[in-house]
């Protein structure tokens, strides 16, 4: 049982990575125009949001 304890920090670290990624996407403005993002997939140019 104690042999598997190394999994605990790994699991938490993975969770943290997910959390930080989410906060980054939020800050990056990726949720500002959800309807537009779906359409922009068809365009070649500039898909970086403006802030």
């Amino acid at each position: 049982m104690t042999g598997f304890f190394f999994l605990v920090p790994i699991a938490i670290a993975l969770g943290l990575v997910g959390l930080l990624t989410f906060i980054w996407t939020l800050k990056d403005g990726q949720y500002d125009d959800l309807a537009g993002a779906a359409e922009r997939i068809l365009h070649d140019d500039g898909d970086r949001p403006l802030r």
Partner: protein
Amino acid sequence: MSCCVPTIDPNDPDRRAAAREELRLASREIESGLWQTDLSVPGIHCGACIHTIEKAIGALPGVTRARVNLSTKRTTIQWRAEAPPPFIETLNAIGYEAHLHDDLAGTKDNTLSELIRALAVAGFAASNIMLLSVSIWSGADAATRDLFHWISAAIALPTLIYSGGVFYRSAWQSLRHGRTNMDVPISIGVALAFGLSIYETIHQGPHAYFDAAVSLLFFLLIGRTLDHMMRERARVAVKGLARLAARGALVRQPDGSQVYMPVQEIEPGMTLLLTAGERVPVDARVLSGASEMDRSLVSGESLPQPVTSGDQLEAGTLNLTGPLTVMATAAAKDSFLAEMMRMMEAAESGRSAYRRIADRAAQLYAPVVHLTALLTFIGWMIATGDFHRAITIAIAVLIITCPCALGLAVPMVQVVAARRLFEHGIMLKDGGALERLADIDTVMFDKTGTLTLGESELVNHDSNARDLAIARAIASQSRHPYSRALAATGDIAAAQITLDAITEHPGLGLEARVGDTTYRLGRADWTLDAANPLKQIPDTASVVLSKDGRYLAAFAFEDRLRPDAAQAVAALTSAGFPVEILSGDRRAAVQAVAAPLGVAWRAGISPSGKTAQIAAALARGQKPLMIGDGLNDAPALTAAHASMAPATAADVGRNAADLVFLRDSLMAVPEAIAVARRAAQLIRENLMLAIGYNVIAVPIAVLGYVTPLIAAIAMSLSSLLVVANALRLGRTNRLQKQKSNGVIGEAPTTRLAGGMA
């Protein structure tokens, strides 16, 4: 440009410079030399629009970035140039209408990002701590348990500090003003639970409440975020488009040169040039020129008022037909618009602050909970003398009674209700408005723009097809409301008439030539020669078409009632609400609308008079719902117990109103009341559920049987229960909608009756 009113010369360099300057005033400098402009482009609807607009704007010299937001129908442009590139002209050229967007609405919503970040952190922490807790509950041995408690503590501490901040700040604000709100018991409960758990962990105790403390925050933050999102969506939708206040005006300097000045810098005594289609920036007196003013938003008068030199103009009125030279008589801060704002503030402070149900519940709830916990502690101290055991059980009581269900119960219902209203094209400002709307008992309507559409409609004419075609061809050249109404009648094919030389005579009418013949369309006394008097005297709302001074036809106009106005009023009356019309318009005009509806009415009421009527109703103990659109209604909207405004309202009015309905139909009013009443019922049910939960859980906690496992299950269950109950609001109505598909005309009334039963 589709408009071609003869009085506007689009190539006038001063005028163009003024438009540019206005664009510059609406932009903000984000770094040195780099400007950002937000434009509202309501026509954006597809992926191709994004591409077309970004391409066209991006190709303009000086533009560094252009970005279309499809969700908000806005275009953000960053540019680096001396003067703003011609954005609006470019958009018009490719077929999109564009408006300057309000700076305020363009700024990002920081509170929402903060809430979502706090929610994300709490969600991460809650799931991880819960996983660790499950293994503890499954019977981990003492060493593992302690290790997991320490890991949980390490996750919980930063979470409580970061995500809990939302509640601590609100609780502190409330305590400092000597009140308690829902956040006070939450903050105390969470902090004590964490403190106890740390103590337990240090002393290697078996029970720690890290999971309860963090998942509590998580659930409550969901409620808080939903609440905020709902209000924000309404705020963004309501703000924007039609700005009432001019941003500036063209000022003629003493030396004859013309300068575009922001409205704040305009001082009394300055000479301003006002073209047709512009709003009056500050209170002013006409020096020269003649025109007609649309005062409907300001005073509720439905007919345009002719003005000539010497007449006084209020800020916010719209110049319709001719250019005017005016002298400012008041600075912006002393103008009519600012006066309205002050009256609204006065009304706001006069209205006793409405306390939301959740806060009123908290006012009772917090002392009861804290007293119970205290009594539990004292009881166990007396019974056992074991301090540690007494405090553990007391804190368990606090945790189990923490108003998780309460915090979710109200916002959940309100969010579902807001969604239901949104499907009907009604925007809700905040949850408190929904609660207030549920207990209104009187309905007061404004007339112009509210009961009516605020647009004239051709109701009667005695012309043959050819005369009508001529009249329409002439009318299509003007922006006067009657001309627009006339031009909008009939089918397009009839307008095959070529006119030469059309001129608009402000305050009088339009003159057109076809070969040697002169047609005039306008006021009877102007169109007709003295030798050819009219057979009968026309009423005030009529226009005459003449050929070389001889009578051809007369056209009568009326302000059109909103679709379903009669039905909506009938629904309200049959539901037992007294309905009254408060209007600033002339007696005859108000009576014409009120009589067929069969409701009480008052005409010629000033803005302060409307507020006084509302205040009198409030003083009688009534709870009036005010529905109005104009600037003159704004103070009354603020003063009323609850208020609604159509989306066409002046932005001041829309901001003052609690609810804004986007569609033309007035059925929005009974529908909104029905949804509000249903929501109020569900909120009461949810509060009862929360109380019922406590009745069962508190004795268990007081007797000391609550373990962290039981606390986690009980809290999650009660939250799920209130959420499920809230969702019923959406379901019941969907069923009703299916039912009503068969009987279109009748359904709304039945729905209203059902909702109010």
